């Protein structure tokens, strides 16, 4: 990258050849309209797994600016009402936009000052419609999300929705890098609903915490500080534990990695 004021942020000429200034100077005749092409500040994986009495979710607190670990206090597990958690990965500014949309939704739901009736199945449907609507305008909100909670009939809801409007449900879900790294680990314990019904809360928390550690080992856009939410059917309650740390890590292997730490001569 060239660091001169006029070339800041552009690929270096040595490596990539001269920069084509038409790209930056592109006008409306070349691009009639251009919307979001990539996320800017990003949050990495959200992971979630069902257990016999509920759901455990986790997401770390990092906001990455490219490869730069820019913000270390981003909260990506959002409570919506008292029976829903939305875990969001992807663009952080879009996360903040979703946060506002969901806040407005809660205000609208409580206008009548009656019993709140915004349940996870409703939040998930709404969110997926917002995503699909935006992607159909070719102006997506750049996120993948997990919606978890207790439904109107106090049943467990664990569903996925992303920037394309794709949705699905599964007893173990992970977004982003976690879809590669955490899913196999989660499915080793919880492949089916039946497996989930055998897993205790302690085991589920242990499983998720282990996945967060593995993700911190292998995902360069992650941090060792994260939030973890426990949804419990019997207690009809959601607890969010903030500022948790990856524990019992071993980094001895790291000295064998080229490019890690101080330059090796």
């Amino acid at each position: 990258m060239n660091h001169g004021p006029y070339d800041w942020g552009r690929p270096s000429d040595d490596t990539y050849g001269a920069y084509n200034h038409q790209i930056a100077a592109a006008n409306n005749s070349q691009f009639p309209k251009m919307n979001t092409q990539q996320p800017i500040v990003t949050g990495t994986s959200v992971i979630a797994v069902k257990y016999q009495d509920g759901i455990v979710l986790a997401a770390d607190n990092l906001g990455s600016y490219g490869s730069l670990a820019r913000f270390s206090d981003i909260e990506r597990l959002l409570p919506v009402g008292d029976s829903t958690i939305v875990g969001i990965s992807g663009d952080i500014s879009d996360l903040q936009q979703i946060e506002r949309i969901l806040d407005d939704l809660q205000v609208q739901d409580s206008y009548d000052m009656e019993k709140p009736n915004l349940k996870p199945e409703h939040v998930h449907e709404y969110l997926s419609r917002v995503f699909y609507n935006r992607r159909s305008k070719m102006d997506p909100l750049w996120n993948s999300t997990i919606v978890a909670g207790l439904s109107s009939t106090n049943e467990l809801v664990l569903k996925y929705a992303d920037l394309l409007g794709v949705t699905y449900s599964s007893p173990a879900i992970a977004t982003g890098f976690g879809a590669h790294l955490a899913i196999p680990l989660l499915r080793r314990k919880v492949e089916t609903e039946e497996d989930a019904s055998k897993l205790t809360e302690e085991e589920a928390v242990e499983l998720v915490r282990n996945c967060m550690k593995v993700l911190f080992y292998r995902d360069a856009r992650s941090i060792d500080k994260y939030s973890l939410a426990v949804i419990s059917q019997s207690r009809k309650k959601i607890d969010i534990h903030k500022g948790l740390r990856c524990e019992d890590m071993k980094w001895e292997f790291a000295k064998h990695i080229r490019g890690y730490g101080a330059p090796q001569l």
Partner: protein
Amino acid sequence: MSSIGTGYDLSNAIFSPDGRNFQVEYASKAVENAGTSIGIKCRDGVVLAVEKIQTSKLLVAGRNKRIQSIDRHIGVAYSGIIPDGRHFVNRGRDEAQSFKSLYKDPIKVPNLIDRVGLYVQNYTCANSVRPFGINAIVGGVDDDGAHLYMIEPSGVYWGYCGTAIGKGRQTAKAELEKLDLPNISVKDGVKEAARIIYLAHEDNKDKEFELEISWVSQSETGGRHEFIPQELFDAAVQYAQEEDDDEEEEDEDVEVQ
């Protein structure tokens, strides 16, 4: 100068020769005989209460709520043409949401009342619309504390420590003036509100009514506008009925003397 027969009262947004807008004055008439609504500003919040006249035995008790929320921290009670009140509240909600989408913070109560004031005033300016047939009492809390306003069909609004509108407004105002406002707690405010509505109902005694009370306070509701809890409501009603009886006894005593 009288209004009827002059022709100056047949359309909205018309001045009479002596500078009055009769249609706005007529709109206020729609409010005067309606059920009483009151608002009390307290040390730590605001209490709203309405006397809900029950027009039929078949109405479902406890439903058909009349007090509404504009945002989490702002409540409204109104008297007059009820559907106009809903229109007013819907506009208030739009304003509050639009403020929040621009500035992220919840709208402050003086700003909200300023905006809805403009909106209501606009309905006095054109002959294609009619003025709102309500007086709305708007109360809420924000970073600057508790606020209480009442807005009229003309679009004018004033801040109050305590205010009342509807058929029993005179009785209610007289009672409000006896209170040490805004130095009482909202808990006391709730009891007084119940008592005052029961008293104001004396002006409308032939009709059944249902009492509705809401509050918004930093200390009691965490800054949210809510209906008061059932136990508190029952206690307030009991207090109101006892006071009511006492008053009658006092009246009788006077007669004996």
